[in-house]
């Protein structure tokens, strides 16, 4: 008997919230919506705060150097007495802005290429697929180094390199989406009913592909931000005195063996949190607007 009740209760637990009493139910979509808003607000706050403290973040104070984390300086200070918390925030805001530009450029490029591939006939499809294979063949970091070198290094070298290298994976996804939509029953029916190509594109294709595009755009951010940090860490691009996570981390390497662990640990954690905020925003948005995964 007891085994039966336990089996029953575990079965109830396995079934989604619908079987719970009303008071215990979590409104799934509302939770997702709130987490999306919270993530977006937090990201905007990082950017704004980073811009505001930008000048303070680079201010040096040699009476306060090499402090380990304390109340006044939650992330500690470096050997020039710069507050690591402010430097980190300022660096993150640069990262998010670079990520914004990179994700937008790459997402638009991916959309255009995927449309050409899926709608432009066999030759165009083969060419775009080949192009994706080509760019995925060079390891991403190496490609970033090459493009940054081609642009003469410096800030814009990094921005351009990160912006123009993130389209291949999204292109693949969108191409498959558009192909699937084109082959679907409802498009065939609309065609038989005499709908024009333009109206099929606007009324059937765009609503089908747009959610994927938007989610793909947001999920490009984490990659763009991490690559920006990585290429900066390697020493390309952003100059030494600019607050940037990559610069902070590469500087910290010289002080690790002296035991100044906070120089590396906290800025890295802050970067991870930022990246995860984008993941939360992206996956919440996916479940809100994409019918395929709304029941997960």
């Amino acid at each position: 008997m007891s085994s039966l009740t336990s089996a029953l209760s575990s079965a109830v637990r396995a079934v989604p919230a619908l079987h719970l009493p009303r008071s215990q139910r979590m409104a799934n979509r509302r939770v997702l919506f709130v987490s999306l808003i919270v993530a977006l607000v937090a990201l905007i706050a990082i950017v704004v705060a980073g811009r505001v403290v930008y000048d303070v973040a680079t201010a040096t104070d040699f009476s306060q150097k090499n402090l380990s984390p304390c109340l006044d300086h939650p992330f500690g200070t470096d050997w020039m007495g710069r507050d690591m918390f402010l430097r980190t925030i300022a660096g993150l805001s640069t990262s998010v802005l670079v990520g914004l530009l990179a994700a937008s450029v790459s997402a638009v490029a991916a959309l255009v290429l995927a449309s050409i591939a899926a709608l432009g006939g066999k030759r165009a499809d083969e060419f775009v697929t080949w192009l994706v294979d080509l760019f995925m063949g060079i390891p991403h970091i190496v490609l970033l180094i090459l493009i940054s070198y081609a642009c003469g290094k410096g800030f814009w070298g990094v921005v351009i390199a990160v912006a123009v290298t993130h389209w291949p994976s999204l292109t693949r996804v969108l191409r498959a989406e558009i192909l699937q939509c084109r082959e679907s029953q409802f498009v065939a029916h609309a065609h038989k009913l005499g709908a024009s190509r333009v109206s099929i594109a606007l009324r059937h294709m765009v609503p089908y592909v747009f959610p994927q595009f938007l989610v793909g755009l947001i999920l490009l951010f984490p990659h763009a931000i991490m690559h920006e940090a990585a290429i900066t860490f390697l020493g390309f691009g952003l100059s030494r005195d600019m607050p940037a996570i990559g610069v902070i981390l590469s500087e910290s390497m010289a002080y690790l063996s002296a035991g100044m662990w906070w120089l590396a640990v906290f800025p890295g954690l802050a970067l991870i949190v930022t990246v995860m905020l984008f993941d939360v925003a992206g996956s919440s948005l996916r479940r809100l607007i994409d019918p395929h995964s709304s029941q997960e």
Partner: protein
Amino acid sequence: MTKRILRQIARLVLLLLAVSIVVFVLVSASPIDPVQANVGQAAYLNMSPEKRAALAEYWGTDIPVWERYLNWAGAFLQGDLGTSLRYNAPVAQVISTRATNTLMLMLVAWVVSGVLGFTLGVVAAMKRGSVIDKLVKGYCFVLAATPAFWIGLVFLIVFAVWLGWFPVGFSVPIGKSAADVTMADALHHLVLPALTLSVVGVANIAMHTREKAIDVMESDCIRFARARGLTSWQALRTHGLRNLLLPAITLQFASISEIFGGSVLVEQVFSYPGLGQAAVTAGLGSDVALLAAIAVFSAALVFAGNLIANILYGVVDPRIRRGEGSHV
């Protein structure tokens, strides 16, 4: 089967050719003047115009890009990769000494992350909803958002600085002549970089395997096996593993590009003398010949991985071997 493989190889050779063109155009497009960068600012200013012209001719800056590319590619095919300016040695020699280090690092990380990720994925799927599953999912979620070089820094702080178990950097002990370096020394220096790369690589394969395994465990053949009285682990072993292994192997071979990228960063953190570190030095120091050669080499490595994955597909999956599979 043979025809399929030959067609694949032809395709990859074509891709590699395209990669070499892209690489060459990129390094040629750089506004950094090779003559100035290689001679040095001070020497360049003190030089007579005739000397500059002679050098420009020597470096070939006045001939068109495509002609330089043909010269470079022709020499490349004959094994002459040029001279590295930073390391003051033939590029082929720099690459061959460093490739051993990098390949060893990548191989260890590749195997460890593959085996560990696959195991974690299967266990998480079998214990779906349990604490283990949540731990694995959380680990993968956080790891996917973590830059490889930061993990390297944290490992360096914990294992090298605080605990002192492993050396802070390099691939051999400092101040030891090359002849005295033992295998144990080399392994000791390899542990931390390889661990870093493995830990980062686990996330992708574990999440993927978990999802596949959940699909497989809900399939009819597993349900039938369970109805016959097999435990779920037995059913998995006899009916599930082969289905799971195939996509996992493909994914792991496809991740060579990421592992190489990760090794560039990790080598930088641990001052590990491999190809990645050389690529960074070459990029920062305008060592065009070395940078281009490493880029082509890494692309060749990635394409080789893809080729092996495609061939293995045919070996493991009888449907594709017989040419039934449409998704090659």
